[in-house]
């Protein structure tokens, strides 16, 4: 079953002479439990596609069906509510709130949903444990390394138990070791938690961890291949889970 599906998706910016067609008709289906990587040269439309999938931007034409609901037909408030409950975002620059601790950052979308403080803290802790960083829950972002911050961001995205995780260059600001750890974490989430992930990346090594690779060029899908995992998946737990 498809968790998200696009039909003849188009996105253009500007008008007349300065009009830029970022997406020229994308038809894409993502199934539950699938790990999809999107690659392409600069300007190919990959980030635009991710933003439209996440309801942060609206298409010029076409449809975006998230669990059967067409995001393109919803107003801003409705899309916001869907982001709050069904879509988890991971950004290249982490985008944590500097004045909040790790635990508070993770609990933020739950608090916004009106969940009780006790419940939101419990789920936040679970999410932090899942990513192996519960022991740093009381630290503010400035006291965390880049890798740790990204793991907090992943925990925040997971805390709402989203239908889909959207990751925009999640390893772009990390060194190779941290990048590998984060990629492995994402892989594990898919394998063990059956999380659906769509990830934009320019790193072929990171993209290799995905089940499927979609290449974009000039706003169109150039290539859509299922990847055979030739390297052993890293199943070793690289970080401790705190009970």
């Amino acid at each position, binding site marked *: 079953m498809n968790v998200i599906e696009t039909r003849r998706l188009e996105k253009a910016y500007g008008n007349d002479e300065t009009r830029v067609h970022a997406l020229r008709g994308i038809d894409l289906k993502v199934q539950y439990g699938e790990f999809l990587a999107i690659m392409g040269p600069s300007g190919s439309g990959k980030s635009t596609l991710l933003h439209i999938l996440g309801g942060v931007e609206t298409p010029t034409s076409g449809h975006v069906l998230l669990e059967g609901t067409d995001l393109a037909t919803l107003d*801003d408030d409705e899309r916001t509510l869907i*982001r709050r409950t069904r879509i988890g975002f991971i950004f290249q620059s982490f985008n944590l*709130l500097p*004045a909040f601790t790790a635990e508070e950052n993770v609990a933020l*979308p739950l608090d*916004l949903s009106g969940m009780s403080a006790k419940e939101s803290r419990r789920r936040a802790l679970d999410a932090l444990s899942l990513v192996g960083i519960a022991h740093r829950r009381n630290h503010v972002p400035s006291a965390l390394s880049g890798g740790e911050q990204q793991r907090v961001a992943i925990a925040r995205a997971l805390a709402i138990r989203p239908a889909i995780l959207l990751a925009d260059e999640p390893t772009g600001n990390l060194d190779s070791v941290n990048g590998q750890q984060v990629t492995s974490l994402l892989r594990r989430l898919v394998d063990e938690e059956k999380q659906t992930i769509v990830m934009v990346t320019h790193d072929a090594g990171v993209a290799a961890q995905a089940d499927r690779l979609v290449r974009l060029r000039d706003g169109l899908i150039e290539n859509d291949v299922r990847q055979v995992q030739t390297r052993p998946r890293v199943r070793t737990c690289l970080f401790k889970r705190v009970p």
Partner: protein
Amino acid sequence: MVLWKFTIREVKSRPGRAALTLLSIVIAVSAVVAVNVSSSTTRRAYEEMYAKLAGRAALEVIAEGGAAYDEAIVPKLEQVPGVKTAVPIFRGPAKLFRKTGKLLFFVMGIDPLRDEAVRDYRLVEGEFFQDDEGALIEAGFARGLGISVGDEIGLLVTRGYTKIPVIGFLAPEGAAQFNQGGTAFVTLRAAQRMFGKPRSINATSLVLEDSADPAAVQAAIARILPPGLTVRPPLARAQLGRETLQSLDQGLGFAYTLTLVLATIVILNTFLMNVGERRRQLAILRALGTTRRQVIGMLLREGLVLGIVGTAAGIVVGLAGAYGLSVAMARAYNATVNALEINAGPFLLAGMLGPGMAMIAMFVPAYLAGKVTPLEGMRPLVTEVTRPASAKVTLLGIGLTLLTGLTLVACVFGYLPIEFATPSGVAYTCSLVLIIPAVLAPVTRLIAKVLHPLLGTAGELAQRQIARRRTRSTLTVGVLYVGLSAGLGLGTAILNNVEDVRNWQAKTFVGDFFVRALQMNLATNDSAPMPEALKADLAAIDGVTSVEAVRFLQDVTAAGMQVNAVLRDYEDQDPNRLLLDLKAGDPGQVRQRLLAGDVVVGTVLAHRAGIKYGGEITLRTLEGPKSLRVAGITNDYVSGGLVIHLERAVGKKLLGAEGADIFIVRANASALHQVESKIKALCDQNSLLLLSFADLRRRLDTLMNGVVAGLWGIMTLGLIVAGFAVANTLTMNVLEQTREIAMLRVVAMTRRQVRNTILSQAVILGVFGVTFGVIAGVVSAYTTNLCTPAVTGRPIDFVLSPSLLVGTYVVALVIILVAAWLPARRAVRLNLLIALQYE
């Protein structure tokens, strides 16, 4: 809850910014509270002074000019339906002699059997009246002077010196509190004897039946009164003081209205910066599922909380300020301030204004923040120069400016009520701010070009940064402009008023020496009068060329209004120099006509009563209403301009005024020293006060200098607040330019050049705002001057003080440069490697 947590953490992380916002609210709210509370306190203290004396009397019968009249009228008054009791009194000023000096005192002659129907007395020591001998004094006042029951006190009244035993002390309540306890209560007969007025009284207090209609009773009594007597509510006496307070209220009201406007602009500027700095974080919240409404609501709540906290602090500061203002005003009017007159009004006003101001100021930033999509918020800031200035805002600004400007013109020329002038003026000032965004770029380019020899390339870079941040730059220029415009407008008006007072005094009280009893009681305009015979004694001194007697009378009714009368010996003045600040009438002709029995009317009285030069005015005299010709109209600061001038002999005949309050002595220039010593000896002998012209001038100068000093203090405070706004703007500019500055430093720019760029921003913003403000301030001052006659009835010469203009300009620019110093230092100290990575 999480959004509250976000707000609190953000406010805590920027304590300086929050402090500036709170400071703006505190200043505005405290100004409102201080002015309102002090005005009502002073007004109340002033009225209470008379209320204590009036007691339960609903009406009183007096003679014009406060003259004495036959007590035989009293039984007739008691026959009038509705009158319960008619209680006669005889009240007069006196001087109390003590070892330590002399004091202005009052003697109140009462009917002991009947007076308690009107006034309360509580004896704390001694005994009440057994016969016509003895006096009762307020206990605290007596003990302060070392007077005990049984002591004799010496009193000088018009008839001469007399000694009287103190038979008892009264509690400090009711009538005993009049003149701060400085009143001796004697029997009516004793007072009549002391003042040489047998069977005479000068006021009858009337207590009415509970069911009586005061207006109907007043009308009935007026029908039976002989000519020269009038009936009115007792507190009408306080009317003159209220007039003076009212004009002060108007001035202060204008000042605090503009303070509110200034504070709102400062808060708006600060909130825009707050929200701008949190742009990325707000975008994260939006991405995570915070709706637009939640973001707007969160920001508005932040404004509300800051508004409430600032209001609470502002009320406390305002009450302290109110106490200080009340004490100063009460001292000036010789009233007593025991406690502040606190009612709900000022607090309700503050409670609405403080949070209201903050919410209004936060509305625009909140609305703009809500419009930003998550993606926009996470991108580097788009500079405003890519979008032109909003045509709607500019057109609105132009439209409002024209509308409010036309309204002001209409008020000046009398087509609209003058009450519209102040709100129109404030709206006009604010509407011009809306035009600033449209002219910001070209004007700052022009300034940078003109100042290029001074600023160089730094100026060009600075101008571009200013133009890129249109909204922030507009608000900063707006703060400078509003603050300076208001300050200069008000300041020039005050200085012109001060100069007018000085000129008036120089024209009207001209003499070498001034002889009077002790200081006039400013509240009651009473002073102990001096005997007529003293004039001849002064004139007999070698070297004296003329002696002019002046008598001040209150309780005079002219043109249906309560006014003061000034009676002078115009025949004893230099015939070539009439001592009046005439605004209409030829001095030579006016003098002749005064001697012939005509009158000169004050400008305010003429304005209120619609009296023209050459017209007539009805004066209530001892012989009934008399129509007198108006020989001239004069500027006058006695009783706020509600005054009528008569030749003293004429006044004596019409109003029964005797004695003199001041003798103005003129002497040969070569004999001044000898004359002074002889006058001094005469004064010592008669326990009088001698002032030279220089003394008089010095006292006035002290008072006026105090007003001017207060003015400079207020303007400096306003400039400092504006300086904070400039500092804020530049700090934000530096933050946003961090990467750009780092790049420039790496490529070519020295630290000094970076500092100069930031300082150049301050100079350009400052020159724009200050120039705009000074020009607007001059226009505002001129407009205020044009409106003054319509408001106060008093035309004032418009004089622009070059020193005020230049001084304001220089001080403002200095404050702005000082404010720019820290942001410039911050820019200079950027760590280049970190700054290059800054987003």
